[in-house]
């Protein structure tokens, strides 16, 4: 009896969750008036960065008078493909999306092309051979971010002739930001033999990972001068490890990171970080510009880099109060 009751309960739950997934098709647009309709499929809401990205796009669409149909893929490619197909059926004017993964987009992008709906990629690229499947790709240039971090280091140590020992905390192995940020950084510092990366491991972009790896670095190498972390979170984890070893972060070991999320900016303003290269999620306004141009049939550059800056400790103090994410 109990067993049957539970089975019924479980079946009910499954049905409820299924209908919840299929429910948000939204009222079908398709009214072809002056207003541009943009279908946007977001990766998910996995981090503060991503949430800021979503908010930026929603706000910018409202400000630009663009009708936004927003869909959250919850980290699943099949959800994203479903969303894009539904955008095609609703005959939106432009489709934009941040691909969850790099590959497997040819079929659905071809469908969009056959229906004459232009596609814009945001934040992440796809590996389709046929670049005519999408109009443009707007997002951060990770190699450039790595280079900026390297340039700061070169500038910081320009008067010194001693060897500079660098420890590097890499992002998730194999991910584009990890590969590119490492490449850009090594390209710049490689010009001067005094810079030496003495330890480099992945911290998986997490605080826990950054802390654990840094603890091991500190024991294996007594002479680390600089820490380069591929994102703020790993840097923040490493910060605790450095403090636990009785060293002063920002002085005994200088820290340069990428991202500029609020917690990282706080550490920078407190003098615990030395430099942050911004990786901005606020690409909404730039995206809306592109949407308008693409809709009007104007040609746009194939690659648009998000407007980004860098922060020193003083700049962080000034920028912190109005940091959105």
């Amino acid at each position, binding site marked *: 009896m*109990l067993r049957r009751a*539970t089975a019924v309960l479980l079946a009910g739950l499954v049905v409820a969750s299924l209908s919840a997934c299929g429910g948000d098709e939204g009222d079908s647009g398709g009214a072809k008036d002056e207003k541009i309709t943009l279908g946007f499929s977001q990766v998910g809401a996995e981090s*503060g960065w991503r949430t800021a990205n979503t908010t930026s796009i929603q706000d910018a669409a409202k400000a630009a008078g663009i009708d936004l149909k927003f869909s959250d893929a919850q980290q699943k490619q099949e959800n994203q493909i479903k969303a894009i197909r539904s955008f095609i059926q609703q005959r939106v004017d432009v489709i934009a999306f941040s691909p969850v993964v790099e590959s497997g987009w040819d079929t659905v992008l071809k469908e969009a092309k056959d229906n004459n709906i232009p596609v814009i990629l945001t934040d992440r690229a796809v590996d389709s051979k046929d670049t005519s499947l999408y109009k443009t790709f707007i997002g951060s240039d990770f190699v450039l971010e790595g280079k900026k971090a390297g340039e700061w280091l070169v500038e910081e140590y320009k008067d010194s002739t001693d060897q500079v020992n660098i420890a590097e905390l890499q992002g998730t192995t194999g991910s584009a930001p990890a590969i590119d940020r490492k490449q850009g950084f090594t390209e710049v510092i490689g010009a001067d033999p005094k810079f030496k990366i003495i330890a*480099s491991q992945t911290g998986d972009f997490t605080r826990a990972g950054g*802390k*654990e790896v840094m*603890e091991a670095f500190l*024991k294996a190498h007594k002479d680390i001068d600089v820490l380069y972390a591929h994102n703020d979170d790993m840097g923040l984890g490493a910060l605790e490890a450095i403090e636990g*070893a009785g060293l002063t972060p920002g002085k005994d070991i200088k820290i340069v990171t990428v991202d500029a999320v609020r917690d990282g900016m706080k550490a920078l303003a407190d003098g615990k970080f030395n430099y942050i290269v911004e990786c901005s999620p606020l690409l909404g306004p730039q995206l809306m510009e592109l949407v308008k141009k693409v809709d009007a049939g104007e040609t746009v550059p194939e690659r648009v880099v998000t407007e980004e800056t860098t922060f020193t400790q003083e700049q962080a103090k000034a920028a912190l109060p109005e940091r959105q994410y």
Partner: protein
Amino acid sequence: MSGRMGAAVGTVWRHRLFWPVLILVVLLLSNLIFTPSFFSVEMRNGHLYGSLIDIARFGAPLVLVALGMTLVIATGGIDLSVGAVVAISGALACLWISKQPDQNAVVGVLVAVGLALLLSLVLGVWNGFLVAAVGIQPIIATLILMVAGRGLAQLITDGQIITINSSPYKLIGGGYLFGLPFSILLALVMTLLAVLFTRRTALGMLIEAVGSNAEASRLSGIRSRRYTLLVYVFCALCAGIAGLMVSSNVSSADGNKAGLLIELDAILAVVIGGTLLTGGRFSLGGTVVGALIIQALSTTIYTIGVPPQTTLVFKAIVVTVVCLIQSPAFRAKFSRRGRPGRADPPARSVQQKVEVPA
């Protein structure tokens, strides 16, 4: 005299913890080649500082999760949801603390810890209910919470990383008591409690009976469902405490990534420790050593600087070797081939269900 010595050596050799401990020692010693100061432990800032301390400290959450997992596996089950419980427990505690006007208030932290552990217990009851009362296979029953639990953790954190600034909470995973890392003490206490309850009372034997043959033990008067439920609740509680440690260590709760794949590490620790996945006999001591081996392996990789791209291959090779070495069946085959006539006594190999785990 020498005969007694030989017998003593023989006993050590035969002890079920011999191989796991030997592997751990070899792993630690191999670090000396690359880092001569690997074994040095000093006082710094009023607390112990050194690689060995790191291994114990970062291994503490895994030790806890693996303890619970051992008892679940001893009943012939498995709990895949521990990673999700780690995330949920940390998320709830950090959320509660972040809402407090004074994050350093001890009462607020205690309430947060209490709530998180209570929720963990409820999740354990849910798992135990599905397995013991509904009769779903453990791997499926706990898979539900493994998948749904991540969602629950993200719901609690609203998809964000919750950062807190609370020194009492920091103690659990990143603090020190009398110069000793608190997390190590906590893991030690939980281990002793588990050993006490399973080995000094009939509980351990009853759990083994359920794992060997649930139906037979029920027919002989053991309330096997009750013990099945109990081990899942204990496992979730251990995972909950581990979740507090993980989040406290970095003063933040990450619903997405906290405790990710820890269930696999825990199962591996149990297997390395010599507990069979088929249920029945278990070894808590072996599990603790197994968990320390896994953490020592990670620390070794960071210390000697294995390139990140080859880390997983390196780990896989070491784990395969470890599993083979501690498998009695493999050793018997190997020693028979090497020195004919010196095989293990047959009585022993029959007694232990010889299988290569994992």
